[in-house]
């Protein structure tokens, strides 16, 4: 699984690409951990996980989001989710993860990254 880490102003945007399932969740988890570390090192207050290029996410990916949240809270970084497709939006609602994370419909202006 690939991912881009792009800094936009005082925000770091992580854009993973593909499916997050049993075979890819560890890479996804690594990308998120790298993002939290980078945001902390650069003293950024906010990390946005751009979901626009995630097709689907199983429970392992969702739980990787929770682990990233724990890591981010320890270094005072806020995590937000952004731009989920319709499937991802449903999965976030079914798992009630829409109550754990703030979810923005779109990335901030000027945000978004390729890989």
């Amino acid at each position, binding site marked *: 699984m690939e991912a881009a880490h792009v800094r936009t102003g005082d925000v770091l945007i992580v854009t993973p690409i593909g499916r997050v*399932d049993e075979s890819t969740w560890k890479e996804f988890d690594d990308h998120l951990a790298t993002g939290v570390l980078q945001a902390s090192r650069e003293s950024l207050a906010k990390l946005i996980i751009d979901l626009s290029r995630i097709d689907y996410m199983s*429970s392992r990916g969702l739980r990787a989001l929770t*682990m990233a949240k724990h890591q981010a809270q320890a270094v005072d970084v806020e995590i937000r989710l952004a731009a989920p497709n319709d499937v991802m939006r449903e999965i976030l609602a079914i798992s009630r993860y829409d*109550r754990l994370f703030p979810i923005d419909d779109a990335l901030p202006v000027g945000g978004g990254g390729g890989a």
Partner: protein
Amino acid sequence: MTDQRAADPVAVRFWGTRGTLPVATTAGQVRSKIVNVLMSASGKSFSNLEEANRFIDHELYFAAGASYGGATSCVEIDCGQDAFFICDMGSGLQGFGRDATLQCRLGRPKKYNFFLSHMHWDHIMGFPSFLPAFDPGSEIVIHACHGDAEQALRRQQDEMFFPDAFDSWAASIRFVTLEPGEEAEVDGLHVVTMRQHHPHESFGYRFRDRAGRTMVYSTDSEHNIDDMDKEAAFVGFFEDADLVICDTMYSLAEASSTKEHRGHSSNVVAIDLCHQARAKRLALFHHDPFHDDEVIQRLHDDSIRYESLTRDGAPLEVLCAYDGLEVVL
């Protein structure tokens, strides 16, 4: 194999499906259901009971015309006319005990094989009211991986908690301690156990009958967020099962945040594990006592949707266990 299955079906009967604490539907909740059904039936007429039942079956969703019930964990595996097999002794055991007593009056042997997931109260509280225990002709064999199972059952009948002492039961009662992972044969049913994550530990059971039908009972099992590699073992334990009964007490968000380390799992994780294991049916089980019928129905609907969104192979049928549900394998 197909012929043997058809000629000798196995029925899995849910006598108690709730977790933690028994609950009962209140008068207000019943009234609310009646009002909603009357509104749904507005303008319709039913000339006989059959038409009324057809309306309930085809035009009402489950929670509108029924209830998931409130008895705690107790599941019977009915393999026919010989010994009984029962997973856990929650408050649902009382109903099973009455039913079994009637069957024994008609000639069924009074042999009861119990398999205990663990000793928490909601899983043993039915035993002091188990009618066959009063019968000197009953033989009760309690299988558990916990070496302290007997101590737990005796303790809950200390006179501080219950008027009748364990030793006052007329039935013959013995305990069999199973080793986790050990395979055993109990009155024709093949059994293997698996250690699960839960306070004071719990154990899952995988049963296989002579016709090769498999059923997994995996309740009170937390799949920890920081130890997801362990889930491969559960995928193996659930592999190709005809029915997997899973603890789905919380949403994934709850299980991984406010309810973490309470020893329970979610519908979403259960579906993922069953998908990987190529199980055929999943029964959502051990419902949260704080959830009313509407909430459980929504959880079931959400689970069916999640299964379809994440399916990458054969469909998994997602059932929602309720007190009285019977699944024929």
